[in-house]
């Protein structure tokens, strides 16, 4: 089946859900799915790569892979928002889904060797960043200092909350924030860019990766620039509505670039030359 | 071939009268065609022509919209809307050459379990004579 999938990029290969974790509950529920490829070997990917998860009868959706290739299996964190994701949220361990990918251009993690890594995330945007920081943690000798800045509306909306708390306990540089004050919250209260302003990360030899809601990205970028970051030091991953995932169907096009093929990872100087503001 | 044909029939039954009528037919153990599938709707007035065509597209051979008797609508006028729609839809279906007999508007109150069962049997027979619906089947 794998061989056929390679020659026909529209055919997904079979993957089994082996674990489901509730990350966030309520209206904007988020679940993390751990998948195992059934018919063939696990595929190779890099942090930032995306995959199309396909549920026959509903359609396909694009998700960036949430864990590092250095960790076992493939994980996706899915925000319940539409047809496919609602169905995914109803699924159980043992159910089968289709997987097409990995597609797109990942983070150039090899180029970043020896540099400090700063991830700035908001809400579900933490997903691709998790892949990055896990990768950096697992190859810690290759990289400089790792800083994780992450925020969400409330403490209940934080994805990978327990994991991040554990990281804090283990001594990692993790800075959490929530938008609205809460009792028992020991970390920063305010928006992610405000947290950045407070933390004042050093631009010297640092790569910053931002991912989150568009407004958060814009303001965070402004803050980073004020702190002395150049656009070439800042990366982001973009999301557009996607269908084919292989650079054909056209809807994820950002002018001459396909988000699914030339992205989803973009360096900021590549985006600032666009006519249409994304 | 025709003898083997078991028509598939979809009924949109209004919550207040016809669904209760169908229920009564069931609880009074009245026999009617087993090919009937009932969808409960809040009012016959909410049955959109697209829902009817969709049923045909999904392979149903006949569609019944069942509501309260005129004047008895729980929402006062819902069944009048239904009537307008069905009368016109039947005309349009005729115009495009589709057997409009496959669509029926039925008034059945909560007490008319017997009537409901009889109508279903009659309608099933009518559809059986018309044969399988292939025109809209997707």
């Amino acid at each position, binding site marked *: 089946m794998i061989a056929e999938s390679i020659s026909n990029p529209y055919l997904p290969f079979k993957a089994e859900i082996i674990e489901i974790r509730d990350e966030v509950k309520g209206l904007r529920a988020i679940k993390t799915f751990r998948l195992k490829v059934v018919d063939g070997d696990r595929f190779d990917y890099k942090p930032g790569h995306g995959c199309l998860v396909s549920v026959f009868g509903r359609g396909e959706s694009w998700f960036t892979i949430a864990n590092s290739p250095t960790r076992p299996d493939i994980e996706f964190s899915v925000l319940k928002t*539409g*047809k496919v994701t609602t169905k995914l949220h109803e699924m159980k361990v043992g159910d089968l889904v289709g997987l097409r990918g990995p597609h797109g251009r990942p983070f150039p993690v090899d180029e970043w060797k020896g540099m400090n890594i700063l991830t700035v995330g908001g809400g579900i945007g933490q997903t691709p960043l998790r892949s990055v920081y896990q990768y950096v943690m697992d190859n810690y000798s290759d990289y400089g200092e790792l800083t994780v800045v992450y925020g969400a509306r409330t403490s209940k909306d934080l994805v990978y909350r327990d994991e991040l708390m554990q990281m804090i306990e283990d001594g990692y540089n993790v800075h959490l924030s929530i938008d609205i004050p809460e009792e028992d919250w020991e970390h920063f209260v305010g928006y992610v860019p405000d947290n950045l302003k407070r933390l004042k990360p050093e631009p010297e030899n640092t790569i910053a990766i931002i991912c989150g809601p568009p407004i958060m990205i814009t303001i965070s970028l402004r803050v980073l620039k004020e702190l002395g970051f150049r656009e070439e030091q800042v990366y982001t991953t973009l999301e557009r509505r996607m269908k084919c995932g292989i650079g054909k169907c056209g809807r994820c096009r950002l002018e001459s670039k396909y988000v699914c093929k030339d992205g989803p990872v973009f360096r900021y100087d590549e985006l600032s030359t666009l006519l249409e503001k994304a | 071939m025709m003898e083997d044909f078991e028509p598939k029939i979809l009924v949109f039954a209004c919550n207040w009268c016809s669904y209760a009528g169908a229920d009564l037919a069931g609880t009074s153990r009245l026999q009617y065609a087993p090919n009937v599938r009932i969808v409960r709707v809040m009012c016959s007035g909410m049955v959109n022509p697209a*829902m009817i*065509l969709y049923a045909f*597209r999904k392979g149903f051979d006949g569609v019944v919209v069942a509501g309260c008797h005129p004047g008895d609508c729980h929402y006062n006028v819902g069944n009048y*809307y239904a009537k307008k729609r069905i009368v016109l839809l039947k*005309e*349009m279906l*005729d115009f*495009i050459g589709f057997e409009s007999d496959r669509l029926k508007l039925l008034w059945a109150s909560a007490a008319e379990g017997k009537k409901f069962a009889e109508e279903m049997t009659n309608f099933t027979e009518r559809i059986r004579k018309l044969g399988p619906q292939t025109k809209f089947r997707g």
Partner: protein
Amino acid sequence: MDTETEKIVRNRVAELLNEDVEAFVVFVRKETEPRERITVIKGPEEAEKVALSPLSVNNTARVLLEVVNNFDGKVGVVAKGCDSKAIKGLISEGKIEREKIHIIGISCPGIVDYRKLIAFSPEDVIFEDGKLIIKPGDKEIPLEEVIHDNCRYCRSPSPVIYDEIYGKAREPFDGTDDDEIEKLPADERWKYWIDVFEKCIRCYACRSACPMCYCTECLVDPVNLAISPMSTAEEKAAYPRFLGKTVTPADNLFYHLIRVFHHAGRCADCGECERACPMDIPLRKLERKLQKEIKEIFGYEDEDIPFLAKLDIIPEGR
């Protein structure tokens, strides 16, 4: 719609723009072919662009509805008979406020089907100052021959609602709306429509061009367009998909039946759907049949109350 009327309208548009009208929905001439398009002008100095001729084909009501709320003040519109019918419909449905618009009504002699003009060699079609002359060889072809088919069935060439009115209307049609298709046996009718809708490419030009098709979300769209950040996942997931994007003749017919059905008692008879259709599908046949039945069964025709809202016209025994 002669050059004389064009001049009067041009002057009136300029005058009104100097007075309390903020913008005007008008026709302007195209540069490269004998055709006109709709635009919105905002100053009296732009009024000289205003065109009015047998090639002012499109329905201005659609553009009026789109732009009317972009302006605080009054918006003017040049409206032919059918355009005014659409405007009247939109007013009665609460989409446009009567006080917000100024209608220059144009009694319409019928409009030319530009697709019929393509049949002539471009040299033989002369279009100057709003005057259209078709002269292949020595003999001039009367405009009546290239008029849009729909205009031949026009029952209200004169505006039904206006603030001022100019021009000379054609004779209103008062024949029957019976269609020869009705006389065919059912199987042949079905075959006719299936053949016709085989051509449909579902570009939705009919829907987009129609002044009465103003819904933000359409029943035949596979996903819901009218969503907000507050829409829940279940809402979006449960949005019914009556039709996908399959273009089988039966599915195309499904779409067109539903579309026509949504115009029960509301159709402005302007024929924009048919005119917009790139595949020349006779969509007006469906619309006219529906209007005819509404008149015959319910006795409803061009009333101020929308058809669906009128409940004292339910016939007995049907």
